[in-house]
């Protein structure tokens, strides 16, 4: 018998790995994601890296909202408030205490958890639509609260805080530029947060959260401490969104009250529904939607003018849209997109996939 030569050993090792991966596809998928994430910023342009980093940040925020609304049944239209708190905490720590960015993330997370928990306390008394309205009011009041005079010296008031000089460079002289390094940090944090989300959702606590969502009274009867769970979930949800906010402070390198308008809270909400309420991975599709669809809508609106002119050549009575005015139709195109999406996927992507899985199962017999 031959003793194993190095080549044979290598082939055997590779073979074993492939077989393990094939049998354990979740692990394979995870490793694939890691690899893709590692090479992505080298292949992509600076702008695209920036956009995908933004996507990851939105995904974290959406996952946070999903934990609260999708898994625990508490409506929130106000998550831009926690996003803002996370961003400002990070920015203030960097400008006032010269703290390195990485440290600000866990602190921002903790602060947001506390705020979320505190907001969760009165929220206990509010159901459904009333809670939605209270959170909606919170989001609208947030920019104004950020301009609060007594704390202006910390927050920079209406001018906000510029962090451009503090954008972290890759440490230890690693050969990454700022865009790439920001991406890697965000990527790592995203993996961590989603790991936490998955673990939470599949744990006993996760089941308790879902039980509360499905039938509060029944859940209470089975011994689940409603108040504790609901407020804790609020806190965790705020924590997630706050982490996203802190990451965005580094990405944009600028925080101001105008960065956190109600449109952000609405966007996070829309992202959650599009991705699928109660389905964590849907957050990425939701993020994709809110990041790119407005741009696509803008292009389509702009192109409408030319399209209408083409149609006018065939149908002379057809109205024409001035090229400049067409830009104003961006909102209409976006709204129509959204409605069509709900028609096709009333329960978001998650619902569509569920339906597909069911159909396949049915077809199999």
């Amino acid at each position: 018998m031959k003793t194993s030569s190095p080549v044979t050993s290598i082939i055997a090792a590779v073979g074993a790995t492939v077989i393990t991966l094939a049998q354990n596809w979740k692990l394979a998928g995870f490793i694939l994601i890691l690899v893709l994430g590692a090479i992505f910023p080298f292949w992509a342009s600076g702008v695209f890296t920036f956009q995908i980093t933004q996507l990851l940040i939105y995904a974290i925020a959406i996952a946070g909202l999903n934990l609260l609304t999708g898994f625990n049944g508490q409506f929130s239209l106000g998550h831009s408030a926690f996003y803002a708190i996370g961003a400002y905490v990070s920015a203030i720590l960097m400008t006032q205490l010269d703290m390195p960015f990485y440290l600000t993330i866990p602190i921002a997370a903790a602060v947001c958890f506390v705020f979320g928990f505190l907001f969760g306390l009165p929220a206990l008394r509010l159901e459904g639509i009333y809670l939605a309205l209270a959170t909606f009011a919170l989001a609208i009041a947030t920019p104004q609260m950020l301009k609060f005079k007594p704390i202006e010296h910390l927050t920079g008031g209406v001018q906000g805080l510029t962090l451009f000089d503090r954008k972290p460079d890759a440490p230890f002289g690693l050969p990454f530029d700022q865009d790439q390094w920001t991406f890697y940090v965000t990527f790592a944090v995203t993996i961590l947060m989603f790991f936490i989300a998955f673990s939470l959702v599949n744990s006993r606590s996760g089941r308790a959260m879902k039980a509360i969502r499905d039938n509060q009274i029944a859940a209470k009867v089975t011994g689940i401490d409603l108040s504790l769970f609901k407020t804790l979930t609020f806190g965790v949800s705020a924590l997630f969104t706050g982490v996203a906010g802190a990451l965005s402070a580094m990405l944009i390198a600028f925080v101001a009250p105008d960065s956190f308008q109600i449109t952000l809270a609405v966007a996070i909400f829309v992202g959650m529904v599009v991705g699928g309420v109660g389905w964590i991975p849907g957050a990425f599709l939701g993020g994709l939607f809110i990041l790119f669809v407005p741009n696509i809508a803008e292009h389509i609106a702009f192109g409408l003018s030319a399209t209408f002119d083409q149609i006018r050549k065939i149908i002379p009575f057809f109205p024409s849209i001035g090229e400049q005015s067409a830009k104003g139709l961006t909102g209409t195109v976006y709204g129509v997109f959204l409605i069509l999406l709900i028609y096709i996927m009333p329960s978001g992507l998650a619902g569509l996939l569920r339906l597909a899985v069911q159909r396949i199962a049915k077809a199999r017999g």
Partner: protein
Amino acid sequence: MEQVVQQIIGGLATGAIYACIALSIVMIYQAIDHLNFAQGEMAMFSTYIAWQLIQWGMPYWGAFFLTIAISFVLGYAIERTVFKPVHNAPVLSHIVIFIALFAIINSMAGFIWEFTIKPFPTPFGTKSVLGEGLLSAHGAGMIAVTGIMLGLLYLFFRYTRVGLAMRAASANPDSARLVGIRVGFMNALGWGMAAAIGAVAGMMIAPVVFLEPNMMVTILLYGFAGAVVGGLTSPGGAVFGGFAVGVLENLASFVPHFGAEMKLSIALALIILVLTLKPHGLFGRRIVSRV
């Protein structure tokens, strides 16, 4: 002291604005069991329709009532075309549709009529009613119109068969169907009525704030605040809530140092405070759900 009185009366005038919108919000909530985030935009769009009719030469009251009729039809149409196909979708998806409607209506208004502000006429004149410009004739007229609408709605829901059917359809659609009520039709009717009320609100509000596509955005929030404070199940409560929010918003400017700057935050604090103490609003009825 005189200033306090002035601010209270001024607050009642702005409160009338919020009360109008709060009423239409509660109205549609009663009809379809949903909160319509696009309510403000619909009201704004209706007001633009009225404005356009007046531009084309129609006298004020003609335009007023024609707009109400058109808004009713549009509201009905929106329900039938946009909501009927998705009425089985989960609640959250419905909210997204409201958001989409908001975007579409806001954008279309800006596209058709541009963003420059337009003055909107008032049928009540601008003379002062309570000396020294405290309350203009229009302000008084607005309060009166809100009261009339409230009265009509009360009569409608309490004493007409259609009103009763509508309440049944929204409270319990399945049981309502069993007794022969056409639930879909009731929903659409409710939408039409809410749109009509919104149109009145818009036409009352525009002379004060000037007509422009974004005019209703914050008013809607204050309207929500009023509706919530008063109770989403009580039209009278909503009107009261609207006035309350208006007065309190003005009184907020007396809070030393930062009162004037923090009006929105005070509205928020108000909402949360009231709801913490009375989760269904001051006048709302508690709906007991059985397991």
